[in-house]
């Protein structure tokens, strides 16, 4: 075992220990497991959302993209600022609604806003389908890091299995608490390694950042600019726009906002995050430094650029440190993604398919589903040859399809009807699937468009069709007399419908025998409107009651 491999194994062990130790006491409810009891401070919310950015995608993907595609990699710098501008207005209303209704996941939000558990199932499936490539990307990174940094002592396949095992274990044991702590360690290590490499490599090989860019411009003219066709400025702008709209539609990032204790934490986040994104520059510098030093990587090999130039420049022990940063950059976000995907499966699909299950059963099955989701991701990792950035862009194209329906639901008068929401999301996702499977481009689909528009990111087609569907189906399905979202509650297990149901419950009860106005003992299996644990709470709560029941809002004690 060489020194690099020792350091990487140390990092894996550290992540595992920290993750398992972070487990908060005994008896974690789904709310504790998934959104940390909604008690995280500004600093931790900052780290959770910032940490989402510093994944394998940044560490290997964006340096590789700079190496392989040159100027097109600037898009990564572009969308950072815009998504946080959007978040200033987007997240506080989402957080308020989620808190009022004690929502756990992203599909809960859609289901509660549109009073339709079916829409919850649809958005959950879209979320899971988009999260899988994101998880695959992390595993791919893990495999690459382990095999390259161990000087091929371990194969990429072994790396994937080991890393996947560690993620699955601590997700099952600790949930989001495990992630919060390892995020701190990860961010410190990844950022210090990135800044060091981004400064050291240009100085070592070229004598500075400015000489590096002049040399590249001299040796490969136009590499640092955007090409006139293909990844042109129009491509960059449309990709930035899609990534901006999609950024907060990722189910795990959406869920990370629920962990905030106060909505001000989210607004402060929007002010600080853009500057934090400057760290991405250093990673791009690494990619550009590698262009002339380790030439010849082609296709999906461009993801190796950072590691190859590190191998050529440093002693094994330092390659080990870089490898450890790479491993953590994949493990920690990977755990968030895995946890989200299994929560979606348990809370928003399984619960609806098999109604009447107890809260504890759902929480337990969410943990059991984590290893199953992991196996699916491992399968796709070992049987696919895409680059990291192309996997990410596909995931973005999928989650962006949720944006129009979500934006409409935040309006004071939501005009969009339930069938229109269904139709729009389905049309958008079907288009993304068609486009990714057939590998179409705008130029191929619409040869009659002017040249400038032919370079639009192909995800735009899906988004445009999505909005058009909303605009067409909404007036067709709107009943002029009845208010759009009233009517019978289907009571399939979503907070919106419980509120209606429990009100009915109490009205009937008041007429019969209750000496109490607001509460009644519930049968063992029925849950109250506040989603409390059945054992902790046997009362019917109203959404307008000011005080949250002590049973479910436990302060985080991690």
């Amino acid at each position, binding site marked *: 075992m060489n020194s690099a491999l020792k350091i990487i194994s140390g990092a894996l062990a550290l992540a595992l220990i920290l993750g398992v130790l972070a487990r908060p006491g005994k008896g974690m409810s789904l709310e504790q497991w998934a959104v940390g009891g909604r008690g995280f401070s500004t600093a931790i919310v900052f780290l959770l959302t910032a940490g989402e950015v510093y994944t394998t995608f940044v560490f290997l993907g964006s340096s590789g993209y700079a190496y392989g595609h040159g*100027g097109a990699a*600037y898009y990564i*710098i*572009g*969308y*950072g*600022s*815009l998504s*946080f*501008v959007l978040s*200033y207005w987007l997240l506080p209303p989402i957080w308020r609604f989620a808190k009022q209704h004690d929502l756990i996941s992203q599909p809960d939000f859609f289901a509660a806003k549109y009073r339709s558990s079916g829409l919850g199932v649809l958005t959950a499936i879209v979320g899971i389908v988009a999260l899988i490539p994101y998880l695959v990307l992390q595993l791919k990174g893990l495999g690459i890091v382990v095999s390259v940094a161990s000087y091929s002592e371990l194969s990429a396949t072994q790396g994937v299995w080991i890393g996947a095992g560690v993620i699955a274990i601590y997700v099952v044991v600790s949930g989001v608490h495990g992630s919060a702590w390892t995020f701190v360690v990860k961010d410190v290590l990844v950022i210090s390694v990135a800044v060091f490499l981004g400064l050291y490599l240009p100085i070592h090989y070229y004598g*500075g*950042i*400015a*000489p*590096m*860019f*002049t040399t590249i*411009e001299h040796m490969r003219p*136009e590499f*640092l*600019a*955007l090409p006139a066709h293909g990844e*042109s*400025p*129009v491509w*960059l*702008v449309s990709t*930035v*726009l899609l990534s901006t709209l999609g950024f907060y539609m990722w189910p795990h990032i959406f869920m990370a906002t629920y962990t905030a*204790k*106060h909505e*001000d934490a989210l*607004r*402060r986040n*929007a*002010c*600080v*995050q*853009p*500057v934090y*994104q*400057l760290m991405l*520059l250093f990673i*791009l510098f690494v990619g550009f430094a590698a262009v002339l030093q380790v030439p010849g990587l082609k296709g999906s090999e461009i993801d190796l650029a950072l590691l190859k130039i590190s191998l050529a420049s440093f002693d094994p022990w330092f390659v080990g440190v870089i490898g450890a940063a790479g491993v953590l950059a994949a493990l920690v976000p990977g755990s968030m993604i895995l946890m989200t995907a299994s929560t979606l499966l348990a809370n928003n699909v399984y619960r609806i398919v098999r109604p009447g299950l107890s809260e504890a059963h759902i929480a337990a099955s969410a943990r059991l589903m984590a290893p199953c989701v992991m196996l699916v991701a491992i399968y796709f990792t070992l049987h696919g040859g895409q680059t990291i950035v192309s996997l990410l862009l596909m995931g973005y194209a999928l989650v962006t399809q949720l944006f129009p329906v979500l934006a409409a639901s935040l309006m004071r008068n939501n005009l969009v009807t339930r069938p229109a929401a269904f139709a729009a999301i389905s049309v958008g996702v079907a288009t993304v699937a068609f486009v990714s499977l057939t590998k179409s481009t705008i130029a191929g689909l619409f040869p009659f468009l002017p040249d400038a528009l032919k370079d639009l990111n192909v995800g735009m087609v899906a988004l445009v069709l999505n909005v058009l569907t909303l605009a067409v189906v909404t007036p067709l399905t709107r009943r002029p007399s009845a208010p759009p979202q009233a009517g019978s509650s289907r009571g399939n297990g979503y907070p919106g419908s419980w509120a209606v149901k429990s009100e009915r419950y109490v009205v009937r009860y008041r007429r019969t025998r209750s000496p109490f106005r607001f509460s009644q003992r519930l049968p063992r299996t029925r849950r109250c409107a506040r989603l409390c644990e059945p054992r902790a709470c046997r009362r019917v709560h109203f959404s307008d009651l000011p005080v949250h029941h002590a049973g479910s809002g436990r302060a985080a004690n991690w």
Partner: protein
Amino acid sequence: MRPIHALAALPIASVLVGPLFLDRVTPFVLGRPFLLAWLSATLVMTSILMGLIYRADRRSQAETTPHPVPEKHA
């Protein structure tokens, strides 16, 4: 939406419109290709502008709410 929120239009325009006209390598700014320097300057500008908007929002909130919510200073 208040008038000061219009400041947010600046970074949006800078990222979504800027690259269409500024796709060039020279002149190098601080040693970086021009478009890269432009986009990273936008990041800094975004933070500053959002900070201004946040401060203005906090101030107007404090004026309209007679008893400030204690959580705000936590």
